[in-house]
């Protein structure tokens, strides 16, 4: 925790997304030829949440584990108003999963900290990042909150609002905490932000630990096109329709809830 009067620091891990038509090659790999990498929508939402703390004077440090086209992604994140950018290089060619990324980001957290909060997206396009920040919380033994839509400084802690299946909660949480962004309007870059991101702000490049990035605990076997569900129209009576819907768990069983 920073001494009284020190500037609040927030680490914002971000992910990239493909911009354009992505196709699959015959070997089950993604054909990214001529497709740009941009900041993912979920990351822009995370930046929007982090900027709520920036309004209270927090310094936003964006970190991105480069899986190709990382600098563009990071500069776009800087254009959203982040103060510093950290690009973790060396993981492009290895098949790193969420666990290895969590370890890599934990290293950045330890080396560049202390931070008062980690704010980031809950998922990524090909799910490589999905679960990373919760895993990071587990590794750093920090509390983890999901679906966060509002955050503010509250004494020595943070006051947050989050939504879940079971209702909306207002919580006071300690610093540091890991906050996964919920449904929030994404942040947008400003013209000066774009200018600064490309002409003024530098990027700190750090090397990923070779051993860590090669120790994937989940192996991606292949990527497939989602099979088109062919539905031929079936003419049924009411009772049959109800049976069909129950067998697909689309409606409640008798006397139960779905």
């Amino acid at each position, binding site marked *: 925790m920073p001494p009284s009067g020190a500037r609040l620091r927030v680490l914002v891990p971000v992910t990239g997304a*493909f911009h354009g*038509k*992505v196709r699959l090659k015959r070997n089950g790999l993604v054909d990214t030829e001529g497709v740009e990498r941009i900041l993912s929508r979920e990351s822009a939402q995370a930046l929007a949440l982090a900027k709520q703390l920036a309004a209270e004077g927090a310094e936003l440090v964006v970190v991105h584990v480069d899986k190709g086209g990382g600098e563009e992604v990071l500069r776009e994140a800087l254009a959203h108003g982040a103060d510093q950018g950290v690009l973790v290089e060396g993981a492009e060619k290895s098949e790193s*999963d*969420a*666990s290895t990324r*969590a370890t890599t980001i934990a290293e950045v957290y330890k080396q560049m900290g202390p931070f008062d909060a980690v704010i980031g997206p*809950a*998922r990524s*396009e090909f*799910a490589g990042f*999905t*679960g*990373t*920040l*919760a*895993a*990071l*919380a*587990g590794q750093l033994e*920090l*509390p*983890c*909150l*999901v*679906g966060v839509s509002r955050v503010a400084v509250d004494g020595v802690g943070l*006051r947050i609002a989050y939504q879940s299946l079971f209702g909306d909660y*207002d*919580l*006071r*949480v*300690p610093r540091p905490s890991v906050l*996964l962004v919920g449904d929030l309007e994404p942040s947008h870059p400003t013209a000066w932000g774009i200018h600064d991101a490309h002409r003024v702000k530098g990027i700190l490049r750090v090397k990923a630990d070779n051993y860590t990035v090669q120790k994937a*605990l989940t*192996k*991606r*076997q*292949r*990527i*497939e*096109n*989602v*099979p088109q*569900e062919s539905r031929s*129209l*079936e*003419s049924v009576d*009411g*009772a049959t*329709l*109800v*049976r069909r*819907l129950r067998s*697909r*768990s*689309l*409606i409640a069983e008798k006397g*139960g*809830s*779905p």
Partner: protein
Amino acid sequence: MSDDLGLAGLYATMADAPRPAANLEDVRGNDWRNILVLGRATKTGVYPETLALVSRARFLADELGCRVEVLLIGSSLDAATAELKRYPIDTVYRVAAPDYAPIDHTARILEQVVRKRKPELVLVFQSRTGDAVTAYAANRLGVGFATGASKVEMDTSERKAVVTHESGGQARFQVVSALQVLPQFVSVQRGLFRAPLETPDATVRVHDLSVEAGRLAPIEVLGHKPAPTPTLETADRVVVAGARIQSAAELDLARQLAQRLDAVFGVTVGIVERGLAKDEGNVVGVHDHHVAPRLLVTVGVRGALDFLEAIEGNPLVCAIGCEATDPIAKRAAYLVAGEVPAGVASVLKGL
């Protein structure tokens, strides 16, 4: 108990005394076996997705020749335990915890139970919290995990899970991943599986486990509101009434159907223009009112372009009271043809 049961009465008496076993010894060695489902208790039983996961776990356990175990975490778990005893489960573990348990608390309890009982596969149902608990607990055990699975299969020779999940982003793909290290943690999408059939002779063992979750972060609940009621845009089930409806009585039947299905009720532009329904902010296809449910039931809807374009995602469409030549029939999977009152009445009777 009646006296005419003979010896069966004796067995029934013995069976009626299930008691939580105490001092359950931890599983030793490195033999990771059995499938553990992280259940969620409600005041009256368990959350339906718990039973759906039990169903999938039972299927996989039968393939692997192992047991299905359910972990319940909470303060009042008797109703949930009683409900689980009716299903094909081998063991229920119960761990006492406050009603509001933060993610790190739940995850650490799960981690401790996994360390004690050594299951090879842990299934959690997907939600934001479920995903986070899965990742948190897996990372503390130093193993991999997969979230949002739409398919969970087992490589029975290796006893390793092969998980399929859909990618996000603009293009939609299926990503197939294999977990490499035991224990394996998977969060599974909701609504994929049906609850298993009740097993009248199920013998479910119940164990109260004592688990030390360690030092926890001080999280204070300042306010809690129940989840907002689903709207036309957010609901999982939607019933829409259309212009084939001839009278207020028929419209009322459609409303009844929505109520029985626990669905949000909407109307089409056509029925509003005919003066049978009012625009109460529930007209699908105008004012940017889109629907993206899992189940869309149309009653007397022909399928005008504005309505069809307001359907997002890939819902299962059931058309009641229309003809096979109507445009809606091209999107529908099921058709209850004929007049609206007869069609709706037959579905209501089936419910």
